[in-house]
């Protein structure tokens, strides 16, 4: 029941007051949520942002009372429709869960029970509260799935989750969430695990459901763009408290808390030309939730701190409909535009000879998948199909595309971790496409890889010093222990880690620090070509900015050439000179970063860019959104002709018949489309 617009806002349906949820561990309480208060009004969309560990999820789980030991609500109240959820007994809170408040979780791949049919999982959500008979619930499940945009819902209900993609599963989760017409839906990072195109579809859906059903939504995300796209009010959390609150229009354009300010400046923007590749970062890490510092919890990292900040600030109004927890802005102080970090002291840069360092032509990689059992044709997956690619010395080339389009396979091909099925890979004049591993070995020193998950790629049993010295010895780069130690110390210094780190193990480092270690390892052998496969995707924006800055600095100092893979278009635009757009193993478009974003010629590039949200609601509203239809088809069975044709808004008959060649548009831009620039 959405409130009529002309009346004053109705009383909040949810009021969280001074909520404290601690993990009562043997080593003392971890004060994950420590004094959080906020309201949610009927039909409202409230966003919660904050970096990893700021307490967003714990807050959501506290409302649903889904906390597992040793987590406990140790203080505060959660008023919801006249009850205090923090004090309900198990039976009473069970009646609220899924009926009055529903929740959608981050990872749709693990949120559905793999051994139960989708119908059963949807139906029980409705029958558990006695509102529907099983038969009625089943009919309703089909209707809901149709509303969520699931194709052939009658068939879908009879399927098992593994038959569906992540996007489809998240639609099922949303159907489940809305099945009992709850008053409030909590969505904890509902699109983080999805591709940007699918994310746009899900966010659209969420907005539509909120509008049509009047369900209030709490949307938790670390992505300011997502929040700006959906929410009418935002909370920023830091160190277990709310530090700023307001409408996204105000908060994201004119932040009143230095932490919000830092978040905004650390994130690269898809809609802005960057004159400098270095991003603004804040030093250090969030404080330890066991011992919050006295005074302002952001003080140790705050560039605006004053003496008064030794006292703990309160969340107080700071203008129309907004509040902040900062002494300086409460007193009317302004947060100035940031100074860019100074580049590292200039080291005479090795002059890169012009010309291509890597030239790839007609590259193919086909994986033969074993068919189940011992009969039938083996299936062939064309992960990379006829790709041409040139990387010049000193250049950064970005590789973008939805998951499964062959980005990582291509990266492994050019570094010859995979053996190509066909095609030439010429690295600095040597064809390594068909070379044996022994022939490539001398070149290994010159091309190195960095991976997304630094933890998985570092041996947990080796000390960091050993991890870095290993490749040095392997390639016979240093003589003797002393020289190896010396070089390890230099490498650690190069990536901004203290020299003592050499004696510690990988697990003793944070995600960002581990990524620094794997960069140091890649650099240890003195490569000139570095392939980075999603190097910042698992990191919070601030850490991401630090790593990007490090990579930019290292490129300048050492004259490195990068092949940079990321699914975040803003990051790619920010760090890359040229961008290659891949779709189902084929190149769709190539061009200079600025041109490609300003004038995308290929319909796929165009839709991809329009799907990426911008953290500014005013710009968001004026941007033209081109809906990306459906999901990528299976690479086992790609469409004939143009591979993009099943999702292309301007496809014609010719597109199914002829494969469009990669044609020169001019200005170094190429597009594989029969009608470039028409869309």
């Amino acid at each position: 029941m959405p409130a009529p617009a002309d009346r004053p806002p109705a009383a909040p349906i949810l009021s969280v007051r001074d909520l404290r949820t601690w993990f009562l561990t043997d080593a003392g309480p971890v004060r994950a949520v420590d004094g959080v208060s906020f309201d949610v009004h009927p039909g409202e969309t409230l966003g919660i942002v904050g970096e990893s560990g700021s307490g967003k999820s714990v807050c959501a789980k506290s409302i649903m009372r889904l906390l597992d030991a040793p987590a406990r609500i140790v203080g505060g109240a959660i008023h919801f429709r006249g009850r205090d959820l923090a004090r309900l007994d198990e039976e009473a809170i069970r009646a609220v869960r899924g009926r009055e408040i529903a929740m959608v979780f981050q990872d749709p791949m693990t949120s559905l029970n793999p051994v139960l049919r989708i119908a059963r999982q949807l139906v029980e959500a409705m029958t558990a509260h006695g509102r529907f008979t099983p038969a009625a619930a089943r009919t309703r499940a089909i209707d809901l799935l149709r509303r969520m945009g699931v194709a052939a819902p009658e068939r879908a209900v009879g399927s098992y989750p593994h038959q569906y993609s992540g996007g489809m599963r998240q639609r099922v989760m949303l159907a489940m969430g809305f099945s009992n017409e709850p008053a409030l839906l909590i969505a904890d990072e509902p699109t983080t695990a999805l591709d940007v195109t699918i994310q746009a579809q899900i966010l659209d859906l969420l907005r539509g459901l909120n509008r049509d059903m009047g369900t209030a939504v709490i949307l938790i995300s670390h992505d300011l763009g997502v929040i700006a796209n959906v929410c009418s009010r935002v909370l920023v959390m830091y160190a277990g408290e709310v530090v700023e609150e307001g409408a996204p229009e105000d908060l994201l354009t004119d932040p009143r808390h230095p932490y919000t300010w830092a978040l905004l400046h650390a994130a690269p923007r898809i809609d802005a030309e960057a004159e400098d590749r270095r991003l603004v970062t804040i030093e250090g890490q969030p404080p330890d939730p066991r011992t919050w510092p006295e005074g302002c919890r952001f003080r140790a990292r705050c560039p605006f701190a004053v003496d008064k900040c030794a006292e703990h600030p309160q969340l107080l109004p700071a203008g129309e409909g907004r509040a902040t927890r900062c002494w300086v802005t409460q007193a009317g102080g302004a947060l100035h535009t940031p100074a860019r970090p100074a580049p590292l002291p200039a080291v005479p840069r090795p002059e890169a000879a012009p010309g291509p360092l890597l030239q790839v032509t007609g590259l193919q990689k086909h994986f033969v998948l074993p068919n189940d059992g011992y009969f039938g044709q083996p299936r062939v997956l064309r992960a990379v199909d006829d790709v041409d690619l040139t990387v010049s010395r000193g250049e950064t080339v970005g590789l973008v595309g939805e998951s499964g389009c062959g980005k990582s396979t291509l990266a492994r091909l050019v570094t010859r971790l995979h053996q190509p099925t066909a095609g030439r890979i010429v690295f600095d004049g040597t064809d390594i496409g068909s070379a044996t591993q022994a022939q490539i070995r001398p070149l290994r020193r010159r091309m190195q890889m960095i991976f997304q998950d630094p933890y998985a790629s570092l041996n947990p049993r080796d000390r960091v010093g050993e991890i870095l010295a290993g490749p040095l010895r392997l390639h016979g780069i240093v003589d003797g222990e002393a020289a190896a130690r010396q070089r390890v110390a230099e490498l650690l210094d190069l990536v901004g880690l203290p020299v003592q780190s050499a004696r510690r193990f990988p697990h003793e480092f944070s995600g960002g620090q581990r990524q620094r270690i794997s960069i140091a390892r890649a650099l240890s052998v003195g490569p000139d070509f570095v392939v980075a496969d999603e190097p910042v995707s698992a990191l919070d924006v601030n850490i991401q900015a630090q790593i990007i800055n490090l990579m930019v600095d290292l490129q300048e100092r050492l004259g490195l050439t990068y092949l940079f893979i990321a699914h975040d278009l803003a990051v790619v635009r920010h760090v890359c000179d040229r961008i290659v757009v891949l779709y189902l193993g084929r190149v769709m478009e190539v061009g200079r970063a600025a041109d490609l974003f300003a004038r995308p010629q290929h319909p796929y590039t165009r839709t991809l860019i329009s799907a990426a949200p911008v953290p500014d609601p005013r710009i968001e509203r004026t941007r033209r959104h081109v809906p990306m239809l459906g999901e990528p088809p299976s690479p086992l069975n790609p469409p004939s002709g143009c591979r993009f044709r099943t999702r292309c808004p301007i496809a014609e008959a010719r597109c199914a018949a002829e494969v469009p060649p990669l044609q020169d548009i001019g200005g170094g831009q190429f597009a594989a489309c029969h009608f470039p620039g028409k869309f």
Partner: protein
Amino acid sequence: MLRYVVSRLGLSVVMVLLATLVIFLIANTVPGDPVLMQLGDLAASNPATVAEFRHHWGLDLPLWHRYWIFLDGMLHGDFGESLVSRRPVLRDIADYAPATVELASIAFVLSLAVGLPLGILAAVRRDSWIDHLARAVSLIGVSAPTFWLAFVVLAIFYGWLDIAPGPGRLDPVSFPPTPITGLLLIDTAWLGDWDTFRDAAAHLVLPSIVLAGSTLGLITRTTRAAMLEALSQDYVRVARAKGLRGRAVVTGHALPNAMLPVVTLGGLAYANLLAGAVMTETVFSWPGLGRYTFTSAVAVDFPAIMAITTIVAIVFVAVNFLVDLSYALLDPRVLKR
């Protein structure tokens, strides 16, 4: 599904063949000369007797020929004659097997009936008294040596308290029923001979408890671990967020997933029970395959040993096949990859 079944079946046949080859090779290369064992020192000193003996048992043929004979016989259900009893091995085995099948099945059902609920409850009420109990049960069950356990229970319940019958399948004064299946409980029930039924059941109590011990421990431990794993999955949190009752979350969501490793373990454990009851059968004078294996091994009775090992291999492969099938039924992801 059919394709899956057929391919698993093909694989099973290949595995059985491989197993027979390995068994044959091992049996024919182990030290211990059957001639000496069978004929005794005196007769073995007479070359003519030895040659005649070797010829009679085909021991003078080349290895591959003997394997072929063995395979061929096996396909016709003929494993040769026992060197000891001078009867077809399969007849011997048919006499001994029912006792073992009966004991192993009871023990298996017992360990499932106790182990599954115990493991589930231990996982749901983690760190409660029932969890500690489950941990004690699995620790004792897995680590207590079987023969020791067998002696202890026999000494306590038969020797000291005298509330359990002594060793053997029946009291010496009971009349065994005419064998139909050879499983006493079934045969006596079929014939309506309830006195003997009770006697047979009473005799099963102690040995089946002893035999169940280690299986019970394993099943409890695996169930508990699998349930803990399943309960920590995201879909369990989702199920709770739907507002399902705690019982429905445990039995409807966690349990079906937790059953997957338990089925694998259970199958292997049952095959193990069928194959490896030597200790228990010896202590309880149980006329089963374990005892037969033991005496055949001591006598280096090649045909018997090979028949037993082959049958054990077949049992293992068959159980494995059944486990694969139930996997496909329990987990939809198995069939469609």
